[in-house]
């Protein structure tokens, strides 16, 4: 309730003498487990409110109401409070700089499906339409040239399981404070990032790099290496991908993922494999083809293949823009492992207002 009061208070104060804009969306997603005749759904309504008191200050916020129903019985999503303040931050633009203070969502990743550098804002490919709650902290970015910058970040609530459970063991469900740097440069036709993060309390260190650019085809890659203070535990995850569009209507993409982050984590690629293998290494391949429809939207199909365990998920889908602010999605997920063969049907609508 305090969060809500704070939200409305800021809206009231900041809108007294400023340029104001608001929008939001309604999203509903139904999942049906075909073989078991069970279903569950997620509904959310969010409200985004932006205030621009001056040219060099912006205040942005996102409030969300979210509820999940399982098997026709109302079930609470995550906890008893269904209202989330996902974002509430101020951005300042002094000359050549950008300073963010509050609850915000940094994104250092470049990948499409596999994202080792998605540290702050882990988002599964299969629920990419859902919102994430931001991290509380500070970011200061200084632009060195038109295409290069250095960012300093401080946050006190990163979910450490985003790094994989191996490094943190039993404390993987906790959130920790981090400080970090992200240097971005550009050469040839590539954006390059070099990152360093330090877990202030536990002495864990993370270094990483990301690259995205063109060599006739679009290519990207990212790598994260983490180690504890006495260097006895290490993690490594890396991903690389490529895409190309041909005949103007088809986009083909492939990605490869290698991880030594530890035990299989159902929060990561949870839909993809029903793995019974708890060893440290994971190797995945993903492929996707998208055909852009003549009106608006696309149809396509993707596959994520667990190389080590020979499990896979195959998902044909259709994304259709019914109206300018109204999209509908339908997809079927087919899971295949040695012991399990299961089908999910996913139907969703997304309305912007």
């Amino acid at each position: 309730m305090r969060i809500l009061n704070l939200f409305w208070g800021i809206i009231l104060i900041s809108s007294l003498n400023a340029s104001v804009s608001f929008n939001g969306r309604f999203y509903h997603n139904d999942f049906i487990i075909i073989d078991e005749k069970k279903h569950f759904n997620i509904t959310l309504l969010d409200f985004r409110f932006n205030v621009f008191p001056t040219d060099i200050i912006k205040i942005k916020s996102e409030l969300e109401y979210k509820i999940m129903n399982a098997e026709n019985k109302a079930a609470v999503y995550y906890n008893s409070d269904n209202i989330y303040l996902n974002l509430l931050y101020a951005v300042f633009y002094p000359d050549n700089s950008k300073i963010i203070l509050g609850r915000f969502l940094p994104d250092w990743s470049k990948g499409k499906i596999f994202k080792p550098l998605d540290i702050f804002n882990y988002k599964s490919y299969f629920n990419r339409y859902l919102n994430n709650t931001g991290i509380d902290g500070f970011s200061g970015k200084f632009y060195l040239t038109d295409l290069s910058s250095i960012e300093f970040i401080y946050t006190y609530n990163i979910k450490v399981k985003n790094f994989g459970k191996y490094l943190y063991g039993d404390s993987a469900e906790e959130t920790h404070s981090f400080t970090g740097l992200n240097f971005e440069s550009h050469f040839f036709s590539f954006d390059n990032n070099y990152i360093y993060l330090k877990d202030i309390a536990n002495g864990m260190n993370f270094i990483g790099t990301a690259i995205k650019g063109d060599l006739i085809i679009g290519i990207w890659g990212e790598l994260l290496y983490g180690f504890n203070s006495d260097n006895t535990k290490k993690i490594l995850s890396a991903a690389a991908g490529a895409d190309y569009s041909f005949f103007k209507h088809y986009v083909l993409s492939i990605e490869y993922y290698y991880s030594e982050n530890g035990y299989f984590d159902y929060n990561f690629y949870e839909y993809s494999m029903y793995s019974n293998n708890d060893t440290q290494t994971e190797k995945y391949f993903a492929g996707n083809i998208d055909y852009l429809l003549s009106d608006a939207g696309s149809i396509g199909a993707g596959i994520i293949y667990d190389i080590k365990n020979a499990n896979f998920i195959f998902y044909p889908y259709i994304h259709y823009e019914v109206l300018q602010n109204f999209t509908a999605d339908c997809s079927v997920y087919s899971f295949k492992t040695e012991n399990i063969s299961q089908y999910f049907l996913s139907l969703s609508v997304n309305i912007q207002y």
Partner: protein
Amino acid sequence: MKKIFILIIILFAKISTAETTEAILKKIDSNMRYKSIKYTGIMEINKHHRRKKIKTFTAIIKGTDKAFIEFINPEDRGTKFLKLGDELWIKGAFAEQADKISGHLLKNSLMGSDFSYEDTMENESLNTLYKSKIIGEEKINNHMCYKLELTAKKKKISYPKLIIWADKEKYIILKEQFFALSGLLLKEMSVLKVKKINNKYIPVKIKMENKQRKNSYTILKMKNISVNQKISDRVFSKRNLEK
């Protein structure tokens, strides 16, 4: 001797034609290419049986390789594009970070319209990109036009062949057809309205039709146009994109 004389005349005629087409393109370029242009664009996107979509944006283009577009219609407000040479970045409406778009996607549709990213951001001179020849003269909207066939000088280009209809008096393109390497007609552009701004004739209403898709066309209206104004290079930066 007579044969040689005829050959010389033919050769001379060909050279003079080549000069003429180059001169025509030069005049078109001088009229339709700008040191810089800034405008508000309104796109009406029409697709087979569907309600038309309206998207508005501000565009700033400098020289041949710098462009910045910001969408301002409610659904897309805050979506921005930065193009530097052959490279393109996007910042989503609710994102704080810019993301690089693969170069091969430059030929894809801009926000669901019949214009590609390149169509709206290209400002390179025709003489630099294409070889040309006159293939006739035709009337377009009561304006007598040169009909020219343009073939690309380099391989890496969106449209290997163009046919353009250029107004003989004003030296602006009133109609343009875009072809694939195979000779397939991809798109057709028609100029619906022209305005004189700063001694330049500028098409301010354009229809772009996708010839590969049934009843698919976009009308682009341009307003608040300013041409050849001084624009800082700082506009074309991630600093501005992430603002």
